């Protein structure tokens, strides 16, 4: 009933408005006027505002650089990262120079040449010289940037076959990461999602001789000072393996293997001890402490204090919980790395344990999922 009343009121209002318009219209006929066009007073005010806006852009930029500049990633934790950051810094300097000059010219001209009644504009329509200058300079500068960029890109993206690397698979699925180490032979065994069964969640081909020493873990450890050759796979949708501190990122594509290689130059402990990181973490913990007080006051639990860890994030929209797809990355000294890896069971051993007739030990893989998976595969096979 109320909604009906509302509708009636709205209709009446609309009619009233329409009638008003008509009356207004009739009184207006014939007297067009120029009051809505900028006059000298407007030009003056707007010209000054343009100048003010220039000041705003500059102050905001400088404020931003001081206030938010420290938040930006720096001190890359990988060898090639230094190369990336150098190129980035050069590009930034260039951008700031061009930005500073062009914004001044644009807004200053808007202020300086604001319209006045007896001012006459200069009839200046063309100048080949100027055109050549400002297509030539960007061309040269960009050519240099392109050359440096391509040189760095080729260095980063192409891994030499004879290079001494450690091969590790990073495996993506909604919404978690898993890692597979290639073991003593440094060759990953073949894998296909059609072979996923029970504890073999990565679909590794267990009959492949290269797969015999493969190790599957849920936390990524890598040694400092050694190039790691990552191979990425995904079992369901696109994901992107993003290691911001290592300046590394590669999409994980179902149906194909993608790759990226980098060499860590800090252990996690060393990176934590860098002065800027100590400051950053202290700042974050101060924020968290403040938030915890609020939370506790509302009867919720306080936040844990934060210690820095390298992370692997998902950076390609992959589903509702995309925002929480992460894996801790630990950079060890080579000795610690060896020790950590040595007591991990191989996948083959895990599968054997899981298939043993006695009840399954440990938490990996339960019978129910296994039967479900087998049934699914059988269903596919029947098709």
């Amino acid at each position, binding site marked *: 009933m109320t909604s009906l009343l509302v509708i009636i009121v709205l209709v009446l209002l609309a009619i009233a408005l329409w009638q008003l318009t008509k009356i207004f219209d009739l009184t207006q006929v014939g007297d067009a006027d120029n009051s809505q066009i900028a006059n000298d007073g407007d030009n003056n005010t707007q010209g000054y505002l343009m100048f003010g806006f220039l000041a705003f852009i500059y102050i905001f930029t400088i404020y931003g650089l001081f206030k938010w500049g420290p938040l930006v990633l720096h001190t890359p934790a990988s060898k090639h990262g230094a190369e990336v950051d150098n190129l980035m810094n050069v590009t930034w300097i260039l951008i700031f120079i061009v*930005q500073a000059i062009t914004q001044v010219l644009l807004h200053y001209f808007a202020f300086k040449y604001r319209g006045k009644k007896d001012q006459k504009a*200069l009839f200046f329509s063309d100048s080949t010289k100027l*055109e050549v200058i400002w297509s030539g300079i960007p061309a040269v500068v960009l050519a240099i940037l392109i050359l440096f960029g391509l040189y760095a890109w080729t260095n980063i993206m192409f891994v030499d076959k004879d290079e001494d690397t450690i091969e590790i698979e990073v495996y993506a699925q909604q919404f978690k990461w898993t890692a597979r180490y290639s073991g003593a032979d440094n060759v990953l065994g073949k894998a296909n999602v059609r072979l996923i069964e029970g504890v073999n969640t990565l679909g590794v081909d267990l009959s492949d001789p290269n797969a015999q020493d493969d190790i599957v873990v849920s936390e990524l450890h890598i040694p400092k000072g050694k190039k790691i050759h990552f191979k990425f796979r995904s079992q369901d949708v696109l994901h992107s393996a993003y290691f911001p501190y290592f300046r590394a990122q590669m999409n994980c594509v179902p*149906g194909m293997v993608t790759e990226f290689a980098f060499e860590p130059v800090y252990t996690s402990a060393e990176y934590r001890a860098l002065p800027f990181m100590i400051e950053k973490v202290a700042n*974050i913990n101060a924020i968290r402490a403040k938030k915890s007080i609020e939370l506790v006051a509302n009867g919720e639990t306080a936040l844990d204090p934060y210690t820095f860890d390298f992370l692997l994030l998902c950076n390609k929209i992959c589903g509702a919980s995309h925002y929480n797809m992460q894996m801790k990355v630990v950079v060890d000294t080579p000795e610690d790395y060896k020790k950590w890896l040595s007591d991990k069971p191989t996948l083959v051993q895990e599968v054997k344990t899981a298939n043993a007739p006695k009840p399954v030990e440990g938490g990996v893989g339960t019978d129910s999922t296994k039967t479900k998976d087998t049934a699914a595969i059988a269903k596919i096979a029947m098709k």
Partner: protein
Amino acid sequence: MSAEGHDHAQDHEHEHHHKDTFITKYIFSIDHKMIAKQYLITGIVMGIVGVMMSMLFRMQLAWPEQSFKIFNVLLGDKFAPNGVMANDIYLALVTIHGTIMVFFVLTAGLSGTFSNLLIPLQIGARDMASGFLNMISYWLFFLSSVVMLSSLFVEAGPASAGWTIYPPLSALPQAIPGSGAGMTLWLVSMALFIAASLMGSLNYIVTVINLRTKGMSMTRLPLTIWAFFVTAIIGVVSFPVLLSAALLLIFDRSFGTSFFLSDIYIAGEVLHYQGGSPVLFEHLFWFLGHPEVYIVILPALGITSEIIATNSRKPIFGYRAMIMSILAIAFLSTIVWGHHMFISGMNPFLGSVFTFTTLLIAIPSAVKAFNYITTLWKGNLQLNPAMLFSIGLVSTFITGGLTGIILGDSTLDINVHDTYFVVAHFHLVMGISALYGMFAGIYHWFPKMFGRMLNKNLGYVHFWVTAVCAYGVFFPMHFIGLAGLPRRYYTNTNFPLFDDLQNVNVLITTFALIGGAFQLVFLYNFFSSIFYGKKAVQNPWRSNTLEWTAPVEHMHGNWPGEIPEVHRWPYDYSNPGHDEDFVPQNVPMKEGEEVLHH
């Protein structure tokens, strides 16, 4: 050509005896001016929806998982129980915001409005080459808007795989609920949209080539027309590729083919797909997707060229260089799509090629920016609201364009790809810039469209608040992107690492909410001025182009008598040989007046 014009004139007089009914005049109109208004109003309505969505997800980003009554009111109990936004609707909002803003507002709303309004009027034609096709084009667009909006009411939620709809996420309802009926409607809507866009584009191309009035050579065309013409060509070249991608995706989704899918294990089940590749979809998508950026920005730049020249009371600097740069941008735009895919897993060698072609685009873009600045130099600037938006466009186009040098460089893209840095970049360079272009166009041609003036003071308020807020939103966003914050995260509270970015997010959202709210000033100004605005004079901005020689009252065929003949280029402002500071295109050359070798 002139003989044809005569025929048209007679036809038109003949037509005048028929009285237009409400339906033929306002709904199924074949008059380009009415169709332009239809595009504009539909675009504005879609824009309101798109901007509202961004307000909602910005609130979630600033105050994650907090309860807001408005969420519950707008999103319902299912997607915002107790006023807390759910994570899947967050992705849906981001997806539909992107789709609506890019396609429905900045492609159809901008290009559809101003191409339709200005092409016949500025080249001196009675109407589009095919008025009927033009009408169909609008109504298909309308239908596609309705389908897109209706997808918001699907039970499992609208498409939520990002506006780039990369499969497998967009192909599998098991992967995300929005990929069910919501995605089907998205694809249907886009198919209709593409059909509409193609009809429009073909019409624009044919009209510009065939229906120019006597004396209107290609090098006497206003730069707006050049921009619309080239934009239409880019659209005809690239939109069909998106259509094919959408069709193949429909096949994969509904008929079990494997164009884009392979080796998938999801929800405890191996799917039958084998041999396809999502990377193929990325290629097809970006073969449209990147030119689309130019489909959005070129008309805005064309509008700006016209408005800056008129209001500077000076010829646009480097008319031919401007045409060359439009053509260069158009050509390059079709060979740079791979810069969206540097880390997609495609061969890194391709990355090198695309870096090279991408950075080349900076050259014609720089030429345009410098030419605008030079046009202002020693002008007599009439700082009307349209002029402010045009200057604002040049400012954001530069700021946003410069960071493109980082994203276009494959090496640097590795670490900023898909972070908020990208979001900041493209919002400034194509989002805000193109919106400014659209606003500039509305403020400038409102008198032509509705015969009335917009209120200038409201226009000034609208511009300055928008300008401050646009930088307030997107400038800080570069920093959180450089801090490594990925886009499309529902919240970053799961990463203590990003806790120090939260304050910045609050600031961004504050600016966004203020900026969004002040668009109401524009809406009020726009809708009330249609009815109550001051009556416009025929040529309020003292402009040279032909649309201002047509009477204020709209009529079929645009000009009551013969179509004006063109004798000069459109930028004879402050030409020393003349008393007035403007010389319309239809004014014959004086004796002894030199033809400019512009």
